[in-house]
């Protein structure tokens, strides 16, 4: 269950210290390259991630955490089932797009509109994920490739819809109209953090319970560990795969809806793609080796790196792109030891077998 974590804690301590030291060295070199004042950079980082007047930067971090964790949870469900779905981005876009369009077009009481839109967004995300599943199961396109390629059409479909039929012409941008103000997710009192994070918290709890305690989660995981085994003992592998993908896509769709109703209040072309929410979600899962309850923590960690880097740029002029480098280096040093068996479970290679 959590042998990854045990590995983290057991023995190996020196090599973990080694990894941490290596990461620090890489970052140090980069800082020197950028000619950054070290102390300022550090305090800028901490302030940017956790500080600000009335903790406004911490709230920014939390707001970003919500989206990253949401995407991470979505990806985790797929990965644990051995489904290498890296089409979270497309599912996210499908969700955001549909959420905005439904909310704009559907008349009715705001709360009803809000929930129907969220539901529609989840359905859209699920459908988009199912499409890649169908491509894999019935048309022979590997999920890894199919799900990735499907990210692009939906992005352009979204772009087209808000550039032409549903464009808010007055705004001058490629974006939809605003969703009705009454459907906007409220802020926590006295803050500028919307309650979208509560939805994500619920999704996380669901994912943890699902993974550890349900029959479906157990079957999906067996399928993930060894698809041949799952087939041989008569698990309905195709159905499992499609259901898991749908679940995964629905959560990505939910995240899209939260970005619409909580943050941007409309669909803006590129708003869900450019910040790399989906990719950050993937690495957040990889960092903790797909252990469900650790995913929210690692999502928060990466969100803090991003907002911290922005703070570092403001105070010390260190390019905030350093956040990407930090994430990559951490993944390289940490995940290369925690999660070994992705490839095997993605079914690319016949396992080496070994003498048995």
């Amino acid at each position: 269950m959590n042998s990854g974590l045990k590995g983290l804690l057991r023995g190996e301590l020196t090599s973990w210290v080694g990894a941490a030291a290596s990461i620090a060295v890489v970052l140090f070199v980069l800082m020197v390259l950028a000619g950054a004042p070290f102390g300022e950079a550090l305090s800028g980082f901490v302030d940017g991630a956790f500080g600000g007047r009335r903790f406004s930067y911490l709230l920014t971090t939390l707001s970003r955490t919500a989206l990253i964790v949401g995407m991470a949870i979505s990806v985790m469900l797929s990965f644990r089932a051995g489904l290498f779905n890296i089409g979270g981005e497309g599912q996210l876009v499908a969700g955001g797009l549909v959420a905005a369009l439904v909310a704009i077009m559907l008349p009715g009481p705001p709360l009803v509109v809000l929930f129907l839109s969220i539901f529609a967004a989840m359905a859209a995300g699920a459908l988009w994920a199912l499409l890649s599943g169908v491509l894999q199961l019935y048309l022979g396109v590997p999920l890894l490739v199919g799900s990735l390629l499907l990210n692009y059409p939906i992005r352009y479909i979204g772009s087209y819809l808000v550039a032409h039929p549903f464009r808010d012409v007055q705004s001058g941008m490629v974006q939809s109209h605003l969703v009705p103000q009454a459907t906007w997710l409220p802020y926590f009192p006295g803050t500028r953090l919307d309650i979208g994070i509560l939805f994500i918290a619920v999704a996380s709890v669901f994912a943890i319970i699902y993974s550890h305690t349900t029959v479906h989660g157990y079957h999906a995981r067996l399928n993930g560990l060894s698809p041949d085994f799952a087939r041989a003992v008569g698990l309905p592998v195709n159905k499992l795969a499609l259901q898991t993908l749908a679940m995964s896509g629905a959560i990505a769709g939910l995240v899209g809806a939260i970005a619409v109703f909580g943050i941007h209040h409309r669909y803006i072309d590129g708003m869900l793609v450019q910040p790399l929410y989906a990719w950050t979600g993937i690495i957040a899962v990889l960092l903790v080796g797909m252990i469900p309850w650790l995913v929210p923590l690692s999502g928060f960690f990466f969100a803090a790196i991003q907002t911290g880097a922005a703070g570092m740029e403001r105070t010390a002029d260190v390019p905030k792109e350093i956040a990407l480098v930090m994430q990559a280096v951490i993944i390289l040093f940490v995940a290369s030891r925690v999660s070994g068996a992705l490839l095997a479970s993605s079914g690319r290679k016949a396992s080496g077998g070994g003498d048995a």
Partner: protein
Amino acid sequence: MHVALSGITVRFGALTAVDDVSLAITPGEIHAIVGENGAGKSTLMNALFGLVEPAAGAISIDGTVRRWTSPRGAIAAGLGMVHQHFMLQEEMTVLENIVLCSEPVGRFGFVDFAAAHRRLKESADSHGIVIGLDRVVGDLSVGERQVVEILKVLYCEAEVLILDEPTSVLTPQEKDRLFAILKSFRAAGKAIVLITHKLDEVMEIADRVSVMRGGRLIASGRRAETSKEEIARGIIGGELPAARQRRPRAPGEVVLSVDKLVAAGRGMAVGPITLSMRAGEIVGIAGVSGNGQAELVQALTGLRPSISGAITLCGVRIEALDVERRRQAGMSYIPEDRQRVGLALGATVAENANAGRDDRAAFSRGPFLNRAAMTRFARSLIERYRIRVGGASARASTMSGGNKQKLVVGRELARATPLVIAENPTWGVDIGAIDFIHGELMRMRDEGHAVLLVSTELDEILALSDRILVMYAGRLAGEVARDEASRERIGEMMTSRAVDALPEVA
């Protein structure tokens, strides 16, 4: 060339796989090494060959101590090894396979295939081996592949030849030809190490026998000075299990009937196959691996779609059903590949034990798992099958091969279905475990279940089956009743109309 191993010790973490073993290998001799699974035979040879690094001990060749940390050094010193599993590139030609790793290179590192061809011809001819060098290995039969392996060793001009279980995949005829080649090598003054589980072979060809158990060398001596029984006692470290009593039993009603079943195979279709099985009988399917047994089993279990034909299980037509519904209709399946198909190695023993159970209510509460019930069931299997494992929550990957197999067998037999399909159920497990698994299959038979036993081990087929079917080239080549069965008769059917896989030795 004399090779002497002294005090070799190999450790894998806490496990001491080879414990202070000293051994001499003499030219012009065939030296058999025997022992249970996991006794350390392969590991000892891997240490000699530079594939693993011994924690202690020395290797000396013709009196001088040598060290190497990769096979490169061993090959240069004149050692050659044919591994337990074929070390071949299926997509390459025979010639490419043979030159690989010791390619004669011309300019800019390009391989001089012509030179290799010439050199190979010489050494092959001298032992009377003929094989098409431009054929792709993937198209070769198992016996031919074995020849490629031997040619690889010959090509490197090895003086010491190590063969790790070379016969486990061969038909009796192929085995005979292999032994003829080995004898020719012995005559040429080469030293040969032969690892095997088959004591008949030891008695047939070996000049010297060494027995290993639990990493230690138990005994070593001239074959002529020992007996099969003595060796067997050495292997298991105790008395041999008593020969199994076979209770006569009249077969009951038809459990499975297969009518003109055709399944897709690699390159060509398998079938049409027609057979039927009754309650209380074990039907053995013999054959050289790759003759359609795997496809037949997969078509029966639903893992592979059948192209045409009918399958009826306990009166229900099942050819259109999926795996789950076929299992519910009364089928259990012990797959050959326990690592990938039999178990999910990353999951716990309990999780593995409960997978594929139809009585879902027994280990779940609504959509939720009943972990306690799952653990209870796993514990009962562990006890009943004497599985040596840390516990129900240990990962399946921590078990040894034999114990893994017991878990698979236990899980499937516990379902007590009318039909049990067992595919090489004792492949690569040791004598003790083999005996246990055979006993279980016999028990099933005696209790009135039908058992379809697919095995490449003739001995196993002969020991268990009430009727024997032989598969060749995707079809049933014939049926032999238990009383009329003999190794020779079946061996012939296994290769009926076969192109001679192994060339005649001059």
